[in-house]
């Protein structure tokens, strides 16, 4: 009986040993699953902790509905700074599946300080913007600036 029991156990563990590769694969998959769960848990915690910050950032990314508001804001800035402001071109440059850039060429004409202040305001627009190029030149009585601004925008679905 003792011999039979030991034999059964030996056979059992021998079978386990021969199936080791399969177990190794299972273990690797389990390890990856545990790691993935840990990452996701950590990510969810981060998302919870930065909820308000993420909302703030999202508010600064232009939406499809916000384009008109943006153009209205730019024109308002022009009026406030007493410059002749016009949006020359408006194009879309793709970035990835989620984002794109609105490329606006804006010309501003007026006094030097007004043009510069308008330019400064354009760089501080409440959106994720970057100035691609800025060209400032003196005309007969005024200064004229042409600015290419790229504004981050959610891709329209």
């Amino acid at each position, binding site marked *: 009986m003792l011999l039979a*029991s030991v034999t059964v156990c030996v056979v059992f563990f021998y079978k386990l040993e021969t199936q080791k590769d399969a177990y190794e694969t299972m273990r690797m998959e389990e390890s990856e699953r545990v790691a993935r769960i840990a990452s996701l848990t950590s990510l969810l915690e981060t998302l919870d902790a930065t909820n308000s910050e993420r909302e703030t950032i999202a508010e600064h990314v232009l939406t499809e509905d916000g384009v008109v508001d943006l153009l209205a804001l730019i024109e308002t800035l022009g009026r406030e700074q007493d410059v002749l402001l016009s949006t020359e071109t408006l194009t879309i440059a793709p970035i990835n599946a989620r984002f794109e850039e609105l490329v606006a060429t804006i010309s501003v004409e007026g006094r030097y300080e007004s043009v510069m202040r308008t330019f400064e305001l354009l760089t501080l627009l409440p959106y994720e913007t970057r100035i691609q190029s800025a060209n400032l030149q003196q005309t007969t009585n005024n200064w004229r600036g042409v600015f290419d601004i790229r504004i981050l925008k959610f891709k329209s679905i």
Partner: protein
Amino acid sequence: MKWSLKKGKHPRLPFGGASRASIHPVRDWLVGLSVAMLVFLGGAAAIAYDFRIQFVLPPEATESTAVTMKYSERDVRHYAERFEARDVEFAKLRGVVVPRADIVSEVPENTEESQPLADQEADGYTTPTLSP
């Protein structure tokens, strides 16, 4: 081979083993089962220990994930703060009405119209309005 519980009737073990007359057959069963259980539990414990090693992530991997997340969180906070600061700056700049005197002083000195205006200011005159 027939087992009997009667005293003195125990058979000899196979393969020429010694007489088991002194060992009770029930105890023989129990000893066999105990040894088998010990072997089985030992093997199971070894496998479980092996599994435990496999399932526990290396500390550096866990820390790496946490650090990555921490950086991500830091970036989010940084960008949010940057936007908020920029909004304040934008509102401040937009609300500022620039006095004429300041406007004059801001005109670059190498322009044709800036020099005479600067001279007037130096002499204490009120700066006249600039022609657009």
